[in-house]
């Protein structure tokens, strides 16, 4: 399996579980050569995104204060951060959570456990996703939501 190199990419990881932050940091630096930033709550994560403009953000859902969905909606709502690729990484496996995450604006919804290599692959793919493609996928998702309602 070839793990793509992330040389030059900065990835922000936002999760209140410090052990997971350590694991993901080590994974991205060892496997993808990414530069990793971390935050252990939604508010700090939002500030870091505004300040550092990472190339991608990996966001947990259940966090104190600002949760993952709120953070994603906030980032998508700001023109300065709307284009940043966002991945939700969470233990919430039910379908309605999955749908809510994508509807909030996330590019990928990953459920734990995720291996380091799979995470690196996911980050690599969303970073390369064009803005136009993101808009097309969101439109398709909204169309599915209207059809099912």
């Amino acid at each position, binding site marked *: 399996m070839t793990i793509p190199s992330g040389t030059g990419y900065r990835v922000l990881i936002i999760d209140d579980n410090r052990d997971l932050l350590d694991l993901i940091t080590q*994974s991205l630096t060892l496997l993808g050569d990414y530069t990793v930033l971390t935050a252990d709550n939604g508010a700090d994560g939002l500030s870091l995104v505004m300040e550092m403009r990472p190339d991608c953000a990996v966001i947990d859902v259940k966090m*104190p204060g600002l949760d993952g969905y709120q953070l994603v909606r906030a980032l998508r709502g700001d023109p300065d951060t709307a284009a940043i690729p966002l991945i939700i990484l969470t*233990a919430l496996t039910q379908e309605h959570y999955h749908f809510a995450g994508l509807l909030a604006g996330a590019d990928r919804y990953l459920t*734990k*456990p995720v291996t*380091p290599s799979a995470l690196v692959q996911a980050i690599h793919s969303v970073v390369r996703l064009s803005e136009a493609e993101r808009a097309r996928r969101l439109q398709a998702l909204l169309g599915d939501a209207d059809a099912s309602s």
Partner: protein
Amino acid sequence: MNAAMKDVPFIVRAERQIYAEYDRDRRLRISRIIAPGFVSVLTLLIVASQIVPQQFAGTRSNLGIIALCDAFFLLGAAAAARKHVNLATGSILLAALLIMALSVLVNQPFILSDLFTVPAVVIIGLSALIGRPWMILGTTALTTAFVLFLSGSPSLAHDLADRNNVNSLGAFIVELWLLALVLYSAARGYRTVLRQISDVRVQYERARQLDELKDQFITSVNHELRNPVMLLQGYVELLRLKGSTLSAERRDDLIQRASRAGESLAHLVQSILDTRRVDQQAKDFAPEAVPVAEMVMTAASLVDPGQGKGVERELHVQVPHELSIWGEKVRLQQILTNLLSNAIKYSAAGTPIEVNARVVSEALPRSNVWRLQRRNGGAPRAGRRMVEIEVRDHGLGIPPDQAPLLFQRFVRLPRDLASTTVGNGLGLYLCRELTEAMGGRIWVESTGVEGEGSTFYLRLPLASPPAGAEAA
């Protein structure tokens, strides 16, 4: 009820209470229509008799009784408005009896006229509608006594000298009692049907709640298992892919992290299995004298430091060194570890935790919080010496109406489910099972006010009376 259902948290009130409330509401609804209606009519009658006395001569001559009836109906209306159902229905029935008496006084000597018969039947019917079943028999007995009293009246003697009239009197009383017994049976039958319906409702509600709790538990355990699994899996994959390129120190670090993740996973699985094992091993009890102070300090050392959010917590322990309980060391340690762990998890970083212990006599503590009965029998023997251990925190507190739920399996408070605080709803259930297996009790007291925290009480049999350690 199915005995297996008894552990299901019962948020909906008990079966008898559901039925009683339904019946009370029905009686109140009817009373609220009848009483104000009669108050209006009688008040108008009284006012009219004052304004146009010639047209209401009969009313004026019986004004006292009419006013008394009005007062009883008014009392009934007021009681119904304030939801005092027995006072409301009792007042209405008394007023109805007075109206019946009035009709007799007005229509003497026609004791068996329709103007007496109709009120008598109406009163008995009314008591069936708004009263308790015994009220039907009560009003019938009062009516019968009233009729028999009147039958002794000298003014009626010539009527009753007629044999036909005596027979009519007897037939009237028999018919009255037949009617009363039919209505009484119907009322009792109605209550039985209501009770059976509420039984079914309660069983359905319990089954639904158990289903909901199991879903919550599975969601909670599912969520908590995934993090340690990801850690374990992640570090193993890193070692597999990059182990050969890493320094020995880095490799060791990754191996240790993987090992910790594995231990965390094992601990979680163990706590789930423990609940089943406690149920099965409740009878395998080998008690001994267990020093409380030593167990408290051991439990404190076993609590996961991570639960304190990286901030040191003060633990204030006031436990006499010689104080011992009669129980099992491992069980007591597990209970105390759970209680201390919860105290840390559900209180703000930096707030102290207090543990106290003393000897008490087995008097039930005055508390508004639900107390659990011991597994091994009913109430404890009066006068037994027990050790009471308190674990107090200054955290979020527990809403008093939700406190009874905490010691049930799988239950977590709605507030905690919505938060990021991890938990599987088994810790306090385990504490309860272990406590009861040792012949003790566990309960919690809390105002529910954030910052005032909660105090968990644990009572276990005293091993031996310590010197100078008794409570006042």
